[in-house]
Structures are given as C-alpha cells and as structure tokens.
C-alpha cells in the first residue's frame, strides 16, 4: 500500500465531535482523474468525512493519503498547500472581501503546472468577472457558490472536495453549476462530490460511495448504479 498512488485513499477513518463517535472506520479510494460521488442521508457523516480530509477535523484513527502522501497530522493550511482544496457546505465565502480578493487569497501556483488563474476562473463563471469588485457578501446564493468553486480552483488543486454545491440553489443555477463541474472534471482533476441531488451526482460520477451512520454502506461504479437504481436507493431510502 505504501506505493499506492491513488489520488486519495482513506483507510478506516474514525472521527469524533467531542465524545460523540461520528465516523466508524470509513474507507474509500478516489482514483486520479475520476469523480467520486459521496452520498448518504442527512447526518450520515458526509461532511464529517470531507472535514477530516481537509484537516478541519482531526481523524482520531485511520489514515488519509493523497498521491501516497500522508495528510493525517497536517494542519488544514498545509493540506490545502499540498493540493487539497475544499468547496465547503454552506459556501463560506469571505463576505467582507470582494469577489477578486476571495480568489486572490486562495491563489497558489504549483511547480507541476498551474492550469487555473483569475482569467480561467472568470471564463468558467463570467458572472464573477462582471462582479469582481463587488463585495462577496452581496452576491446571490448561486454566485456565492460559483465563487466558492472558483476560490478552490485558484489553489490549483490535485484533489477537489465539493460538499453539496447544489444545496439551496434554483434549478437553472444547479444546471449551470453542474456544467461547470463537468468542465472541471474534463481538465483531469480528481474530485469528491457530496450531493443530496442524486441525479446531478449520478450524471457526473464515475464512482459512487454511500455512507450511512458513519460507515460505508455501498461502494461501486456509477455505471452499476445507473443500471440498477435499486442498489443505491435501498441504502439511501430518501431519493
């Protein structure tokens, strides 16, 4: 396993909030250039998993590796610098910064090539260019989501984590965000996408992992899930 060069490998990760044990040994693998949909009901532990990868929550047990490099004990800023960038649930853009400043503070060039820049982000989301001098706090929900995605891309990530990017958005905006994710994926980026929007996730995904009460309940290819919808719905129930 030491030579494993999958984009991201989690091995039996356990996480707690205080005394409450939330992740009970989550293992998953994201291969390079693929999009893995991480699904599960409300409170299943999706965000907790994402937070552990980003280092915003310290996993108590288990290991997390990115292209073979252990991230386990790194502080969040060093995980970000190593190449994991996050589009968090609830967007969490910096409201007192302008659009442009939100992108600027996240900018990082990488020795191995930096495909993303202000120009490329504005090309992906022309609306952000129109509003680049505007305070980010005054953007609409959809624009804030685009900004959160753009901000993550400015770090030229090797692995992109997206936590419910379609949450609370109007259908038209969801479609726009979906197209953007598709385009990002075509760049060859390795992505974990958490979604409650089952259809959006399945349209984009190569692989699917379902978690339930902090454990992996299903793991397989998106093709298999698309062929046999029951497979996942029995784990998810709600969809």
């Amino acid at each position, binding site marked *: 396993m030491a030579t494993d060069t999958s984009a991201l490998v989690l091995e039996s990760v356990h996480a707690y909030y205080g005394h409450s044990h939330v992740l009970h040994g989550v293992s998953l693998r994201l291969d390079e250039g693929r999009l893995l949909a991480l699904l599960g009901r409300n409170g299943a532990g999706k965000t907790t998993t994402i937070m552990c990868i*980003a*280092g915003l929550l310290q996993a108590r047990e288990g290991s997390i590796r990115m292209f073979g490099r252990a991230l386990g004990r790194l502080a969040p800023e060093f995980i*970000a610098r190593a190449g994991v960038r996050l589009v968090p649930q609830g967007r969490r853009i910096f409201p007192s*910064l302008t659009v442009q400043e939100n992108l600027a*503070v996240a900018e990082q060039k990488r020795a191995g090539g930096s495909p993303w820049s202000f120009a490329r982000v504005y090309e992906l989301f022309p609306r952000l260019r129109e509003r680049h001098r505007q305070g980010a706090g005054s953007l609409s929900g959809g624009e804030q989501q685009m900004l959160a995605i753009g901000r993550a891309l400015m770090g030229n990530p090797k692995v992109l984590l997206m936590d419910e990017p379609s949450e609370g958005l109007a259908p038209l905006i969801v479609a726009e965000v979906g197209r953007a994710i598709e385009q990002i994926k075509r760049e060859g980026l390795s992505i974990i996408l958490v979604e409650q929007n089952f259809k959006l996730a399945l349209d984009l995904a190569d692989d699917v992992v379902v978690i339930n009460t902090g454990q992996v309940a299903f793991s397989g290819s998106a093709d298999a899930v698309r062929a046999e919808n029951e497979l996942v719905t029995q784990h998810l129930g709600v969809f």
Partner: protein
Amino acid sequence: MQFWQIQTLNSFALGGLLFLLSSGFALIFGLMRIANLTHGALFMLGAYAAVSAMRAGFGLALAAVIAALSVAVVGGLIERLVLRRLSGNAQGQVLATLGLSFIASDFCLIVWGGDTIPIQTPAMFQAPLRFMGLIFPTYRLVVVGIAVVVGMVLYLLMERTRLGAMIRAGVDDMQMARAVGIRASALFTTVFCLGALLAGLGGAVGGPIFSAYPGLDSDMLSLALIVVILGGIGSLVGTFVASFIIGFIYTFGTALLPDLAYVILFLPMVIVIAFRPTGLFGTIRT
C-alpha cells in the same frame, strides 16, 4: 477662548494616541479573538524604551522608531512563546496576558524606577504655532498628523494589499481561511507584531504629552477597551472615530467635571453595550 481651543487640540492629540493604541488591540481581537490585556503595558514599554533611547543620545523621532520596533519584538515573543500554547483557551489567554502585564509593569519599575520621567518635546516643535491670533501647541498637531498618516497607511494595508485581504478573510472565518491555504501561525504573529508596534509607537510619540510613569499601562488599557467597545471590533474606521470621540469626552470631562470624569467616560460605553453591542461601526459582537 484659549481654554476651549487648547482643550480641543488636546482632545485631538489624545484621540490620535488612542487610535495608535486601539487599532492594534482591535486588529488582534478581530483576528485572534484574544483580548490582549498586555496592550497597555506595550504602550508603556514604548514610552520607557523611548526614554532609554533618548538617554543614549537619539532624538525623539529615532527613539520612537527604536521603541516601536523593540515593542514589536516583545509582542512577537508574547504571541509565539505564550499565547500560541494557549490557542483555543480564551480564559487562559486573558489570564496570561493579564499576568504578563503585571510582570511588565514590575519590570519597568525595576529598570526605570517609580518616578515620573518627562520626555522632552523635540526643540523644533517647542515653540507654539500662532495662527489668526490663536496659539496652538505645535507638538499636539504633530501627534494628530502622525495618527492620521498611520491611519491611512493601515487603511491601505488592510484594503489594498493581499496581506490585508488575508487578515480580513481570517476575521471573517479563520477555519475557512486556513482551508484556502492561509498560514494561521504566520498571520497571527504578523498581526500581533503590528499591533504591538503601533502600541509602542503610541507610547513613544505620546511621551512628551503623558511622560513615562508607573500606571500608564492600566490608564491606557482602560481607555483602549472603551474605544474598542464604542467603535466596534473589526472596523478600522470605527476605531478611528471612537478614538477621537473618547479623546474629546475624556479631555473635556476631566477639565470641566473632574469628579465625574469616569462617569462621563464609561456612560457612553454602557449605552453602546446596551443598545448596539456590535459598537458604532463594527460587525462582530463583543
């Protein structure tokens, strides 16, 4: 006539010094959520450091630079060696900064003694300015000028540079700031040094007005707390305006109603806390 005019200028000068003191305090609180109770002591250290630098033969301007830089180093050490170990423990940090400020005042007592040490106004500013039949103490005007310039530089730093944007991002959401790769540790040290530098500069520049004396630290700390509560945390403009408001209230309060000076000073603060807990301009609740 002369009374009002002199007191008005005194108010502006005090306001300027309060701004040098409080802007750093507010910056540190906004970013690190630490009520840095050493801030009064850092101001006092600035005054005493200027005393020593001037005894060594430097003029006040150079002494102020030396004082500001040495106090910045002290601030950096406090952050790295003490507060860093207490991150996430707000109560511990408050107690530690309080303890450190006691240590600092004892240190000053040992090194510089218990008597008030006057600091000479530079010769070039000793003669009062005469303008339209009015007389102005020149150095007070210089202090106001320094505060305004520092205020503008700070404003540009915060609003026009990447470092400023990183600080504001940290004030908005520190966890998310780290998740975009901003190094919290370096940012905290930078901001703490900057806040200490401004306090030290204030102590030195204020020297000819206040002198250096034991107790300068607690006098200044209480004023800084009032300014920050009035102006609101996380607002440079708020700190600026509140500094001058308090400068006026304190100067005229002590001159006109010396018995009620503290009532006059703390009353606006109580009213603000009761009716506008974010301060006049701020966005973060104190």
